[in-house]
């Protein structure tokens, strides 16, 4: 009997080994993906209660006494339940509408964070008799969780039930306007120079090495640059969207340059040669024929850069954008804070009620980031040209 020369007695073992190896790599991707899902779930679960806020229905007496000592507006029993921050607005309300003076109205009023946390069954410092009172009011339907519009329409506050995210959103928008206004044109110009005009000499190589390095320098060092150059040397206002935007622009620049170069490189040479054949100058070819074709790629890269700049925190902390900002900034030079910095500030607050606010702020960041990334992917898919 002739033995099969191809028979390998260890073959079954080798195949088992191969399967085991394959399973190991599958396990690693499964671990990564389940982390992502668990993480999103955990954040969403923590953030969800922030969409609701406790309100109490009480009688508010608008009187002269109430304009001086705002807590006088509420009956004594209800005082520990009603938000002090809300009551502070009573004089302003009377000023806006004088007919309110000396009237008593039954209103839904913002409750304190402790009542809010009690209603959500989180840890709270409500006294036992207060808890009984809240329980009784809840049965009468006089305490309830309402949809929390305040969170999206108000600025920051040290009082948890009053804190909102609007000032941080406005700050982020202003900062990112500065970032993109600087980084987009400068990044595209650099990419055009390197791809279309530059000769292969020491200067070009030096620029390339620098771009590569900038892309991987820790972000906090950009903060040190912003602090010593923009603030201390140029004397620009600290904590302002202007300085923040300029610092972030330097960080976003390499991302835009790299993606714009890739987009320009993918434009076939025949387009340029056709242009030369028609007697166009290089400038015309690039401006009217190469750049428009490469634009979707350039925009995709810029959106990804924008999404990264939006989430960046460390350099902005260094240049002081973690200031307490109760009102939305109105200009590029006013002190402002940004979304991730607001999240950072809230995460350091001792009150339990800030935990859900922090998570809600994070969900806002993640939603904006995912929308931007989805837009980038859509752009890439829709305008991708296969030559």
């Amino acid at each position: 009997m002739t033995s099969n020369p191809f028979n390998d007695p260890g073959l079954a073992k080798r195949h088992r080994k191969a399967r085991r190896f394959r399973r190991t790599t599958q396990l690693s991707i499964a671990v990564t993906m389940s982390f992502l899902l668990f993480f999103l779930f955990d954040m969403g679960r923590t953030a969800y209660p922030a969409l609701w806020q406790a309100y109490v229905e009480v009688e508010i007496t608008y009187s002269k006494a109430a304009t001086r000592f705002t807590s006088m507006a509420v009956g004594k029993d209800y005082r520990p339940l009603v938000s002090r921050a809300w009551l502070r607005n009573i004089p302003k309300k009377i000023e806006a509408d004088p007919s309110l003076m000396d009237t008593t109205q039954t209103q839904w009023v913002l409750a304190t964070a402790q009542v809010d946390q009690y209603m959500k069954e989180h840890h709270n410092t409500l006294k036992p008799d207060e808890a009984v009172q809240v329980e009784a009011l809840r049965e009468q339907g006089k305490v309830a969780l309402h949809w929390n519009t305040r969170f999206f329409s108000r600025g920051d506050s040290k009082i948890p039930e009053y804190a909102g995210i609007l000032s941080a959103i406005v700050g982020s928008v202003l900062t990112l306007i500065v970032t993109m206004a600087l980084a987009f044109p400068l990044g595209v110009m650099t990419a055009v120079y390197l791809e279309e005009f530059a000769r292969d000499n020491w200067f070009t190589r030096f620029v390339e090495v620098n771009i590569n390095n900038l892309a991987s320098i820790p972000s906090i060092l950009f903060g040190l640059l912003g602090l010593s150059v923009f603030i201390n040397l140029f004397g620009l206002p600290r904590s302002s969207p202007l300085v923040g935007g300029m610092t972030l622009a330097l960080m976003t620049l390499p991302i835009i340059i790299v993606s714009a170069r890739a987009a320009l490189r993918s434009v076939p040479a025949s387009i340029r040669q056709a242009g030369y054949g028609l007697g166009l100058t290089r400038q015309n070819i690039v401006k009217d024929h190469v750049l428009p074709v490469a634009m979707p790629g350039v925009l995709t890269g810029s959106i990804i850069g924008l999404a990264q700049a939006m989430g960046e925190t460390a350099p902005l902390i260094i240049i002081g954008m973690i200031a307490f900002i109760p009102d939305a900034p109105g200009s590029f030079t006013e002190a402002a804070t940004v979304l991730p910095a607001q999240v950072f500030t809230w995460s350091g607050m001792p009150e339990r009620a800030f935990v859900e606010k922090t998570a809600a702020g994070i969900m806002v960041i993640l939603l904006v980031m995912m929308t931007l990334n989805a837009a980038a992917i859509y752009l890439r898919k829709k305008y991708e040209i296969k030559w």
Partner: protein
Amino acid sequence: MFQTDTRKKPLFRKENLTVAALLLASTLSIITTIGILFSILFQAIEFFKLQSFWTFITGTEWYVGHNKSVFGAVPIFAGTFMITAIALLVAIPVGLGNAIYLSEYAGKKTRNTLKPMLEILAGIPTVVYGFFAALTVAPAIVELFELIGIEAAYNSALACGLVMGVMIVPVITSLSDDVLRAVPGSQRNASFALGMTHSETIRHIILPSAVPGIISASLLGFSKAIGETMIVVMAAGLRPNLTWNPLEDMTTVTVRIVDSLVGDQAFDSPYTLSAFALGLVLFVITLVLNMISLVQIRKFKKKYQINSL
């Protein structure tokens, strides 16, 4: 019949202007690098005028007081490397496993779903990871070790390192994936033709070829971990602590930088200036890592004559 373009001269002059403007824009990246280097260097020199460089590099005590301060940065470096090491122990195996799965086993459809998910993971801001580390991971670790009777700190190096590892996974995954896919198909086919199984091909042929690229990816992850700020600011300790125990709190270079710059101390006090000395160390280390990483990837590209990557 053909007319000469009389505008020729001004047209070219205009082009020269454009090129000059573009050239100017591209010098910005050089200016930024030099700006970062000098803004850190000058303040660091001020610091070393006040404090001894030797103590800074070799001293094991970091103490800031009203009258007397000692700036020995060894405990800070140790904390940084401990957390970074934990992060890399998580990120390199998982990242490499992901890359092998994506480049070798996954079908096109699986790839197209997994890639965007990895992009989401890569895009999560570090402040979010920091919150996650402090709120979820650190207490879980404390409880876990309590079960076996070991006490862990709420701001342990382990919690920071684990979360930081997750943060670096997408970096190492996507770079290694690119590298593995760039290994020429002829090598794979030759191995299959000799009767090697898929896993043998990967382990003995593809991975060895891709080693420079994988080293490059890991070094990039390393430099990202060292420079990472928000996770450690939110979840690591403030106290410089020289220990081998990852369950204790440790501090890092970036934490000290943030801590000394957000305080209300005078800008020229040694405490504030120490941030720049630490920043200089960070700059030099990441620069060296990036350079080695670039050289490695260039080596890989040269060996297989790859133009992309």
